């Protein structure tokens, strides 16, 4: 009896594999369309923390955080703008911390905590000239992994389904094959 069941189980499972053997002869080829194409970076480069002591343009405004005479504003997915607020009437951006995949921030003492994709990173901000990453907890927030700002392009329409073995750090418009679509 056992062997009869096993036999049918194997037949049944085999039928599941069947579709993968076909070369999808009936499926129409993907069309060339105007859409969004991912910009990839190697993970170790995408996760580099860099401080630029120079005002940078804001691309997509995100969360704000007040700390002493400074205001920090997230540039969604790109990093953190540093704003000198010593004299509010003259407050302005003075620098930018590149933290790709970043959306959240909190500060205590000399340390800034932020997410970089799904990781929790700790930055020592005591001395801007020597601003650096002091620790990183990989995959601290597993759900951010598929939920970080550049997982999908901002615009609706066709986009190239991103590869899962690389990090997306932006999107550009191009002529692409119509494989993914954002409503």
């Amino acid at each position, binding site marked *: 009896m056992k062997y009869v069941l096993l036999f049918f189980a194997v037949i049944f499972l085999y039928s599941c594999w069947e579709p993968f053997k076909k070369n999808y002869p009936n499926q129409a080829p993907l069309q060339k369309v105007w859409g969004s194409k991912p910009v990839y970076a190697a993970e170790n480069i995408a996760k580099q923390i860099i401080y630029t002591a120079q005002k940078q343009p804001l691309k997509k405004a995100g969360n704000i955080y007040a700390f002493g005479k400074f205001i920090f504003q997230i540039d969604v997915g790109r990093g953190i703008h540093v704003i000198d607020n010593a004299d*509010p009437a003259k407050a302005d951006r003075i620098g930018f911390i590149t933290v790709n995949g970043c959306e*959240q921030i*909190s500060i205590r003492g000399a340390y800034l905590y932020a997410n970089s994709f799904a990781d929790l990173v700790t930055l020592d901000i005591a001395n801007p000239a020597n601003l650096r990453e002091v620790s990183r907890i990989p995959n601290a927030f597993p759900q951010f992994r598929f939920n970080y700002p550049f997982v999908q392009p901002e615009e609706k329409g066709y986009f190239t389904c991103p590869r899962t073995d690389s990090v997306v750090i932006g999107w550009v418009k191009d002529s692409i094959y119509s494989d993914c679509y954002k409503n």
Partner: protein
Amino acid sequence: MKMRLTAFVTILVISICAMFYSCTKEATSSSASAGKGGSLTRFTIAGSFLYAVDNNYLYAYSLNNPAKPEKVYTSPVGMNIETIYPYNKYLFLGTQTGLFIYSIDTPAKPLLIGEARHARSCDPVVANDSVSFVTLKSSGCGPAVSGLYVYDINSITKPVLKKTVELPDPVGLGLQDSILYVCCGNAGLKVFNVKSPFLPNLISIKTDGNFVDVIPYDGLLICFVQDGIILYDITKPATPVLVKKIAN
């Protein structure tokens, strides 16, 4: 137009009703050496702990060694957590299905002590000793009526919905003394007097930007707008004065 009507009705209701005073202490945030975030944040520091939420989980990280946070707690909360707001010994979690209140008397072990369910929507929270203010934004989030929801939290384990003010897609909000600032995108920053918290009184609307979130901080209202930051002087909280706009 709808807004004006709501405001009018609110003012009318207030003028008819007898005013009652409720103590609303200044909302202060956590410890001395931490900064202050807005109401849309998923990270917050209280004492020597960093609390964070992703879609379904609440995490606590000990900052005993501030250079190397250490995870001490993880707990599933529910579906679609969006924001976390600390007040005194509590964490207020705004989720798409309701308001959750955690006690952090034992900082490394947050304990769920109260919740108020509502129809699906997006909702940041601010709170003080006796009241919690929640904005629900229905567009793209769910069927709930967009607006400001005021909960009585005198009994913290049983938040009671006391008042709803219909607003078009409100987002972040901030509380300074008895003044509540509610961001309504392009419809402006709505300034409410909430001395009687269950009868919020709209006193003015600022239309200098597309408002998303605010932080009342040291006499200054820091506003996150779609194209950057706007600063208002709120030494007199009821009458914000434009100080600076930092746009692209």
